[in-house]
């Protein structure tokens, strides 16, 4: 086995060694440990392949005897002499000058025996570093508790390298971000099946990753970066990562089991609320409150349906995070496909609040796109337990519509686009007229003026001045009436699609 001096010195056990002089790139094939005074050692050196000579006894003087030793060492093919100095003894300029002249490196080590063992271990067999790392990984896995983060932390300490737990697409789930984006994509792109991956990084080191299998859900990766080119250490680390992968996979499976249990209870709770109708029994309400769902509140339902394959249980936290980052503390319940979710308010949200919530949801959906592409439907504001069921239902309808609406970014909010959709869908049917009538009913109840004003306003292409002129009223009167209409209908007339829906409805009734 051959190794470069720099490789041998890079392992954690030899990091206190100090190369006083010499070429770190020199190739080493053997380690010779010798005890006794320099003169005795000189006599034992015979020519051979490149070696490190470890002086077991501390060097008390860097004198002619040490110089003679350097010369004999040089003649015997020794490329580096490792030694510990007695207190007060340090190789002077003469010693280093001679070492340079003879091309023999000088390596100061705190503990020659330890250094010798480490060097032997690394050179004696290519498996030794791997065995050492794998044993440490196994030991750390045994000692770690059920928590993934703790397990990862113990493994990092045991192996001496920062570790990263990556998901199937290369995002860091836990641990240090040891790889940059380029490194991660390179790593994931190079992975085939469940085989460990090793790719060179830009700084001359190696990136290594081993698959973490849980048996359920998508595969994760355990990755580390070896800063320099250290083939033996890299190979050993890869083996250790595979061992560690089993341990981490086990912890992930445990976490998954707990998640699934929670998901099941959430899903069945929502199903029971749906079945309960307008008045959930107190026992059910209690359970909902225990689950952290405030029923006696105003809700906006959100239905999130992935457009590709997804794991509702594993990715629920991604959904929660994405909405939380946009200021929306949502409840999300795993469904067969995607999630039924909602956001609750203690008091009735204003139009502005609803609009900003809607904008936040849209952004959250956009944030998620790189990882999960979704159709998102949003319901109208509804109050109470039954309202929750209703708005979640509306959101589900909206999400279905969103499937075919790439132009809105697969996002449909019932409050706005929903009206237009409903109208367009219903013009061809017998149900359109009653629907239109029902839509505009609040205006009828407030007197014919509002309906007429709305009709002219929409006919004139949303011009307040024109409408005022036609009706022969002051423009402020028109503005007041429009505000009244918006309030009664709960719509935003600034939205062109809403205007279209109302326009159709008002024309139908005329």
């Amino acid at each position: 086995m051959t190794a470069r001096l720099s490789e041998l010195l890079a392992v954690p056990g030899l990091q206190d060694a100090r190369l006083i002089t010499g070429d770190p790139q020199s190739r080493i094939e053997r380690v010779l440990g010798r005890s006794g005074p320099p003169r005795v050692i000189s006599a034992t050196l015979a020519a051979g392949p490149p070696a490190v000579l470890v002086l077991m006894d501390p060097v008390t003087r860097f004198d002619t005897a040490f110089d003679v030793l350097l010369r004999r060492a040089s003649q015997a093919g020794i490329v580096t002499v490792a030694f510990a100095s007695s207190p007060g003894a340090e190789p002077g300029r003469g010693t280093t000058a001679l070492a340079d002249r003879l091309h023999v490196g000088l390596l100061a080590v705190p503990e020659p025996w330890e250094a010798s063992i480490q060097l032997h271990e690394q050179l004696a067999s290519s498996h030794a570093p791997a065995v050492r790392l794998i044993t440490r990984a196994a030991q750390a896995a045994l000692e770690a508790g059920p928590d993934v983060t703790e397990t990862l932390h113990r493994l990092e300490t045991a192996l001496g390298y920062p570790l990263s737990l990556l998901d199937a697409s290369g995002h860091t789930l836990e641990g240090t971000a040891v790889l940059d984006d380029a490194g991660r994509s390179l790593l994931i792109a190079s992975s085939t099946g469940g085989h460990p991956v090793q790719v060179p990084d830009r700084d001359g080191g190696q990136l290594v990753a081993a698959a973490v299998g849980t048996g359920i859900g998508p595969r994760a990766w355990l990755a580390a970066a070896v800063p320099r080119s250290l083939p033996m250490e890299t190979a050993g680390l890869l083996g250790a990562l595979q061992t560690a992968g089993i341990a981490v996979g086990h912890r992930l499976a445990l976490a998954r089991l707990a998640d699934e249990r929670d998901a099941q209870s959430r899903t069945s709770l929502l199903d029971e609320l749906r079945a309960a109708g307008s008045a959930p029994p107190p026992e059910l309400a209690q359970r909902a409150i225990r689950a952290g769902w405030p029923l006696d509140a105003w809700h906006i339902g959100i239905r999130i349906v992935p457009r590709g394959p997804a794991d509702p249980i594993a990715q629920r936290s991604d959904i929660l995070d994405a909405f939380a980052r946009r200021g929306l503390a949502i409840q999300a319940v795993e469904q067969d496909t995607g999630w039924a979710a909602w956001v609750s308010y203690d008091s009735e949200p204003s139009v502005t609040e609803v609009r900003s919530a809607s904008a936040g949801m849209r952004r959250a959906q956009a944030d998620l796109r790189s990882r999960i592409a979704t159709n998102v439907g949003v319901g109208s504001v509804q109050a109470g337990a039954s309202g929750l069921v209703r708005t979640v239902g509306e959101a589900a309808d909206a999400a279905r519509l969103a499937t075919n609406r790439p132009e809105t970014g697969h996002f449909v909010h019932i409050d706005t686009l929903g009206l237009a959709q409903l109208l367009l869908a219903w013009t061809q049917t017998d149900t359109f007229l009653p629907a239109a009538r029902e839509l505009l009913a609040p205006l009828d109840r407030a007197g014919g003026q509002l309906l007429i004003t709305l009709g002219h306003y929409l006919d004139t292409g949303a011009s307040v001045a024109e409408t005022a002129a036609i009706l022969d009223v002051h423009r402020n009167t028109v503005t007041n009436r429009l505000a009244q209409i918006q309030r009664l209908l709960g719509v935003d007339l600034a939205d062109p699609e809403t205007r279209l829906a109302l326009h159709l409805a008002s024309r139908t009734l005329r």
Partner: protein
Amino acid sequence: MGADAGAVSRITGADIDALAAGAAILGCGGGGQVDLLRSALRPRRGELAVRVEPVDSALRSLVAVTFLGSTTVLGEKPPGGFELPTAVEAVERWTGERAEAVVPAQIGGMTALGTVSLADMSGLPILDADMVGRATPRLDQLSIFTRGVVRLTAAIVTTSGLSIVIDASSPAELESALRGAVAPSGGWAAFALGPLSLDRVRADLVIGSVSRAIRVGRALADQESLAAAAAALGGRIAARGRVIDVERHDDPISFVHGTAALSDPRSGAVARLEMGSEYLYLTVDGEPTASVPDVISVLDARTGGPIGADQLRSGNHVEVLVLPGAPLWRSDPAFLARADPRFYGIDADPITATTP
């Protein structure tokens, strides 16, 4: 390197500079500041005439002399000139035996000139020998102690006039007694040992040392370069370059106090010197290159002047001169064991200067 090769029989004022320069080289970075005594001898140059006797002469007894203690203090507290003669008198008086000649215990450093001054004052001849061939930090390392001597009588005289005479049964005892006496009484002392029977110690002396010091000094003065001088003396420039690192350990018990590294800007070679009071061991690019008992001397590359082991600093541009050590040390394993690197606490085999 025989005793007769260029042996001198007389030292006059004209020889002092060569002797001083040679003794400094043979001092191997130790042995004290030669310049100090050279200056002291200068006024007497005109009339200076000292007889030099070969080791195989018919002389019967001799006294070995040197300086002990801290050579740094010697610079701050210069000798009065009476110390060596007083020490010789002291051993003569104690033993009741007269010395017929004096001999430097170590040729390296200031002892050579001190012996000349002593001989001049006492009218005794100098024996062309010493007991180290370079400089040594310890008395018990003198060559005559290798096979043991029956009786040891020695005297020290400090600059304040304090005289101590010691009878000791072993060199180690002598060494420890004198060290204890020198430290509190001024830091250095003149030392005299003997009188010794020449017949008894003749085989254990490093022969021709005084002549050799003069020869080394002349070669340095006559030759164009240090390298040429080294070649003429059977030695070589073993390393050169800029001092990039000097470490001195606070460890007075050990012989080896420090180490210095040189970097040769031309070849890129990295040399290292191991040093105590003197330079002891040299490696070049981790290859052992020179060691005691050979002579290792560090010279300023620009001036050619020797740089003491305690003076070497980072940034010095130097040349390291290696000359063969005294053949006596390699003549017998018992001798070598007292002069090789291990004796100085350096766990390495001795290297012969002639090894390329």
